[in-house]
C-alpha cells in the first residue's frame, strides 16, 4: 500500500481569519477562536498547547470539518471545509483520536472496531481486511485482533482508536490529549506510535497536549491563548521563553526547568536541552 504521507509542497491545512463563536442558549456567546491564521505543511509534526479553554479543541475540530468557521475559512488539502460537498473528502484525509478511549470504541472485537471506518467507505471486503491488518500491524496489536476492546488496558484501547483512524488511510491524524488518562507504559507506547507514524509513514500529526514534555517531541509547537496563536516555533525556541509561557499559564518541560535553575547557579549549559537524557549528557 502507499505510504500515508503524500509529501507535497505547500500547506496541507490552512486557516485564514478563522473565527468561531459558540452561541449559548440563554447565556450569550463565547468567541472561542478570534481571527486566527495558520498553515500546517504536509508531513509536519505539530504540538498544540495552551491553557484550558484557550480554543485548542475547537481549532482541532475545524481540521476535519466537525466544526466550520463562523467567519474566515479553513482549507484541508486545498478543499474548503465550509463547502458541504467537500466534507466527506476532508474527513477521509483527517482522522481524530480523543482523550477518553472508552468513548470512541464501538465494536465487540478489536478488528471489527478498526474495520468500522473502512466499512463506512463501502470498500470491497478484501480491501477492508488488508487495511485492518495493516493498521493493527502499525500499532502492534495484530495479536489482539479478536479480543474485546473493553478488556484491554487504557493504552491498548488508545492504540485501537489510532488503528481505527489509520484504517481510513488519512494523510493526517489530530490527537486531542491522547495520553492524559494513560499510565506511563501506555503513554510511552502511544507517543512512540505517534512519532513513528510521522517519521516512518510521513503522516501529518497534530498533537494537543497539556504535557510540556510531550510537546518537546514535536518539531513545531503552537501556543494558543484566548482563541489566538500566541507563539509558533520549534519547541527548543518556544521553551526558551519561560516568562512568556508562564504568563500564559503554561510551564516548562522538567528538564528545561532544571537546566534554567542550573544556569542561574552559574553552571554553563548549551541551549535547547529539552529532555533529561540530553541534560545528563550535557552535564557529564
Amino acid at each position: 500500500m502507499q505510504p500515508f504521507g503524500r509529501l507535497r509542497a505547500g500547506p496541507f491545512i490552512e486557516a485564514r481569519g478563522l473565527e468561531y463563536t459558540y452561541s449559548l442558549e440563554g447565556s450569550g456567546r463565547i468567541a472561542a477562536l478570534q481571527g486566527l491564521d495558520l498553515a500546517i505543511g504536509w508531513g509536519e509534526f505539530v504540538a498544540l498547547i495552551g491553557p484550558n479553554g484557550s480554543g485548542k479543541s475547537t481549532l482541532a475540530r475545524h481540521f476535519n470539518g466537525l466544526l466550520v468557521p463562523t467567519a474566515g475559512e479553513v482549507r484541508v488539502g486545498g478543499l474548503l471545509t465550509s463547502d458541504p460537498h467537500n466534507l466527506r473528502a476532508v474527513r477521509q484525509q483527517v482522522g481524530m483520536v480523543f482523550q477518553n478511549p472508552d468513548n470512541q470504541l464501538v465494536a465487540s472485537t478489536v478488528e471489527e472496531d478498526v474495520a468500522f471506518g473502512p466499512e463506512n467507505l463501502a470498500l470491497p471486503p478484501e480491501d477492508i481486511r488488508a487495511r485492518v491488518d495493516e493498521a493493527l500491524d502499525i500499532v502492534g496489536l495484530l495479536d489482539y485482533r479478536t479480543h474485546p476492546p473493553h478488556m484491554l488496558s487504557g493504552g491498548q484501547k488508545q492504540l485501537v482508536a489510532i488503528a481505527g483512524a489509520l484504517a481510513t488511510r488519512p494523510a493526517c491524524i489530530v490527537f486531542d490529549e491522547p495520553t492524559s488518562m494513560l499510565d506511563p507504559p501506555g503513554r510511552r507506547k502511544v507517543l512512540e506510535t505517534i512519532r513513528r507514524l510521522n517519521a516512518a509513514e510521513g503522516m501529518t500529526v497534530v498533537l494537543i497536549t497539556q504535557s510540556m514534555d510531550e510537546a518537546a517531541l514535536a518539531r513545531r509547537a503552537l501556543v494558543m491563548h484566548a482563541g489566538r496563536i500566541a507563539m509558533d516555533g520549534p519547541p527548543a525556541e518556544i521553551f526558551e521563553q519561560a516568562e512568556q509561557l508562564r504568563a500564559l499559564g503554561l510551564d516548562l518541560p522538567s528538564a528545561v526547568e532544571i537546566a534554567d535553575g542550573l544556569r542561574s547557579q552559574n553552571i554553563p549549559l548549551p541551549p535547547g536541552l529539552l529532555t533529561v537524557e540530553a541534560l545528563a549528557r550535557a552535564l557529564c
Partner: protein
Amino acid sequence: MLIRVERLVHTYSPGTPLERRALREVSLEIKPGERVGILGPTGSGKSTLVQHLAGLLEPTAGQVLLDGVAAHARTAPPPRMRGGWGGRRLRVGLAFQYPEDQIFEQTVFREVAFGPHNLGLAEAEIATRVRWALEMVGLDPATMEERVPFTLSGGEMRRVALAGVLALRPEVLILDEPTAGLDPRGRRNLLARVQAWQAETGSTLVLVSHNLDDLARVAERAVVLVGGRVVADGPFRQVLSDGELLRAAGLDVPQPVALLQALRASGWDVRTDYLLPEEAVAEIARAGVVRREHANHVRSDRLWYQQH
C-alpha cells in the same frame, strides 16, 4: 476519621467468564490528616480501592471500616438531613477519574451546590461554599456560576466537577487523577490550594495519580498497588526514589530522580532521592562545585608534577 482496610478482596463479575479480581487481600490503615498518594499502573486496582473507601462498593471479602463502621453500610439518614442517606458517606468526598461524567446540572452554580444541598445547609452557606470551591479550582465565580456546564471546555468541566466534591468539605477527600487534562498552572494551583486547605482543616487527603511529579508536591506517604496487591507502602520520598520498584510497577521515576540517577551512574556524587526540580538543582549545583574543586586540584597537582 480513621480508615481501616482489612484483607479487602474485590472481584468484578464473579462466576462469569468475565470474572476479574481487582483487589486481592489489601490491608492498610489511613490515619486522620494523612496525605496519601496511591500509585500503580492501569488495572492495578487503584480506582476500585478508592471507591471502597467512599463506600460505593461492597467488598467481596474483608472489610473497610470508617471509624469502626463498615463504609458501605447504609445507615438511616439523620433527621436534619433532607437529601437521603448521606451521613458517614458524605464525610468522604470522592472525585472520579472522569469527573466530567458526574456532571448533570443546568448551571455551574447548581452543579457545585448539589452536594451542599444534600447536606441540608442554609442557602447563604451554600452560596459561600460554591464560590469558595470554584475559586479553589481556579474558576472565577462571577463569570462561571451561570454558565451551562456542557458548554465548557474539557478542562473547565473537570474543574467544575472537582469543585462539586470540594464544596462538601469532606473529612476525607479522595481525588482520582485530579490533574489529568488541566493546564500546568491549573494543576499547580489546584494542588497548592488543596494542600493549604488540608493543612488548615486537618482533613485526610488521598490522591490517585500516574503523575508522580504532581504527587511529589503533596503526598507524604506512597502506597503502590500492582495486580490488586500492595507492593510498597512507606514515606513518599523513600518509595519514589526506588527506581527498581517503580519500574517493576510500570511507573516512571520522577524526572528529577531520573536525572540524578543518570548523573550518579556517570560518577557524580549526588543523592538521588530529590523529587522536585528545585531540589535537584540545589543538589547538582552542590555536587558540581565539589567536582570543579576536585578537577582544579587534579589539574594543579598535575601541573606541579610536570614542573618538578
